[in-house]
């Protein structure tokens, strides 16, 4: 069956689809039940799957993570919602010390097939702590996978893959584009691969690498640049960890130029990793220094000034021009 859906609805579709197929899948989190989630990502699931599979929890993120790990050790496949990524910090001890390690610690005797979903990123004029992009913290933790969809179809396919993954997956949903784009998708239970980039646009002059809501800005920059004769290859990283280094390297070897775009603060962002890997492994192919277009090394400002914090397509265009003009 085809559905014309936005990213948020695609998430809902994937959840419902997998819950129908697999009785071990359960959902837990704050307001995920009757309310269907503050963004409505879990809308109607409680009605369809009942109280035992869609659980409203007390308000305690540490608990949500810890209980999910216990459930997962028993072979359930919990999907925990953290209401906003800015509230994931209390869950980090459980995620880092246990979810990421249970399989390794027990040499595979126990495992932790869970998904933690959280909306992330800025641009929706939200209150403080509702606009963070701290994916880099999670990407640094061995034992986790970190996935970020940037379109309805990828949200659907990657979420299915995350749920089926035998290991813990952090699934970060760019809330700024939750509703901005409709896409026709088939509710066919087909997963997309975790650990692979998606090349959204082919080009020969320069490689643009990004993820999440920044893909929208990146694509529109690429569009504008095409009019000026600059052909950008646009890569959606999609899986922040483990990185699909190969696809990026192949592209950069072809174009010789790279701009990386992310919302998170520059220092210690995932962009640093990509930039480092490319320079280390393709130094002689680089025809210009890699440029990172990122958030600043500041706290995300309250929303009146957030547009000054967030990279936009003009920033990307400027960075691309600087890079292609480098000789």
């Amino acid at each position, binding site marked *: 069956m085809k559905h014309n859906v936005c990213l948020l609805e695609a998430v809902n579709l994937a959840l419902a689809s997998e819950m129908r197929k697999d009785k071990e899948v359960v959902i837990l989190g*704050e*307001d995920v*039940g*009757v*309310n*269907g989630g*503050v963004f409505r990502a879990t809308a109607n699931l409680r009605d369809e799957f009942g109280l035992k599979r869609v659980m*409203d929890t*007390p*308000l*305690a*993120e*540490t*608990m949500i993570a810890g209980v999910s790990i216990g459930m997962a050790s028993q072979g359930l496949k919990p999907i925990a919602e953290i209401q906003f990524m*800015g*509230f994931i*910090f*209390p869950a980090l001890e459980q995620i880092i010390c246990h979810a990421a390690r249970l399989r390794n610690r027990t040499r595979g005797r126990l495992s932790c097939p869970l998904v933690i979903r959280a909306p992330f990123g800025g641009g929706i*004029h*939200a*209150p*403080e*702590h*509702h606009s963070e992009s701290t994916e880099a913290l999670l990407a640094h933790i061995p034992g986790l996978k970190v996935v970020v969809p940037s379109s309805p179809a990828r949200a659907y396919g990657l979420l299915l893959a995350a749920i089926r993954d035998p290991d813990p997956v952090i699934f970060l949903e760019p809330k700024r584009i939750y509703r901005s784009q409709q896409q026709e998708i088939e509710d066919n239970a087909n997963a997309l691969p975790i650990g692979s980039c998606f090349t959204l646009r082919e080009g020969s002059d320069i490689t643009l690498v990004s993820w999440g809501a920044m893909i929208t800005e990146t694509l529109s920059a690429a569009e504008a640049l095409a009019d000026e004769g600059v052909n950008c290859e646009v890569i959606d990283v999609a899986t922040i960890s483990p990185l699909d280094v190969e696809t990026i390297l192949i592209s950069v070897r072809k174009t010789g130029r790279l701009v990386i775009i992310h919302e998170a603060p*520059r*220092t210690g962002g995932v962009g640093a990793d990509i930039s480092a890997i490319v320079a280390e492994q393709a130094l002689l192919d680089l025809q210009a*220094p890699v*440029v990172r277009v990122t958030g*600043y*090394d*500041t*706290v995300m*400002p*309250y*929303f*009146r*000034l*957030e547009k*000054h*914090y967030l990279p936009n397509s*003009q*920033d990307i265009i*400027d*960075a691309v*021009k*600087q890079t292609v003009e*480098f000789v």
Partner: protein
Amino acid sequence: MKTLPPIQYLDQEGQPSQPCPEWCNKPDWLLRCYHYMVLARQFDTKAIALQRTGQLGTYASLLGSEGIDVPVALSMKPSDVLVPYYRNHACQIIRGMPLEEAFLYWGGDERGNSSDQMGEDFPNAVPIATQSLHACGVASAFKIRNQKRAAVTFIGDGGTSKGDFMEALNVAGVWQLPVVFIINNNQWAISIPRQIQSAVAQLADKAVAAGIPGIQVDGNDPIAMHEAINNALNRAHEGKGATLIEAISYRLGDHTTADDATRYRSNDELKAAWERDPIKRLRNFLALQNFWDESKEQALLQETHQLVQEAANKYIEISPQKIDSIFDYLYAEPNNQLIEQKDWAIVKAMQGGSHYEGESS
């Protein structure tokens, strides 16, 4: 555990359900309290209107908390420190936060936390329960320095499920800290009703786990709240340690302007809650005591409406912060990267500006 009913002096019609304290025979405190409760509600109405017309961000309504916040603010000493959650604008305003700065905070501008009039009070805490520990730290400083001051901190019913709240009660108990914890038990945490948060008989019983006194109070009864907070503050000031007050109220509005409570709760429940409205209750009592009449009511409504309107106008006229402000307050001294990034941001905001030409040095 035997569970007593919440402490109450006024029933929901404003009739004394037990003899009121002596001071209730004089109008002073009662009228001040009523004044601020009405002011708070006017502020709330205006804030929602501003939000609906795109002039404010997501806003957490204080509707139904007036009977808690106002008595607390009136009982606190200026030298005490308020450590709020995000629904204590009434308390903050009475403690000196200019009305326009309250708007400013909800309008997405850090200057809403910056006013000198806020003294040493903490700004709003958005991450649930984190503030409870700050209050313990503030109270520890008072204790270490032998100051006769107290920290007062609020939390919602939902927030009491979060571990750090219990850690705060625990350290306050074992260190005998001068801190008052107030739970605004408004029965809902967004869509989660109180009974889904915890099987504890009453939230006040969480105090048992920390060896501190916990009491349940009718939070729609300003007289009961006054008594409770005063006793707790006295205990704190006298070095007798912490108190937990569970104030029973009801969230009369949506969780925030981003929420739609009709999705998860019944009109009947809401209607019944309005019967317990703290403002109506105090007004009835004032009338009963012959401290109040319709003309005073009209004058007060007009006065507070005007105060709020003027503040809203000021708010709307305040020009936005400079881009520099994103960088200037992060550290006492900015580092080189930050100075460079500030330059980029300023250039980028200029018509036609691009910071990339200068970057690779």
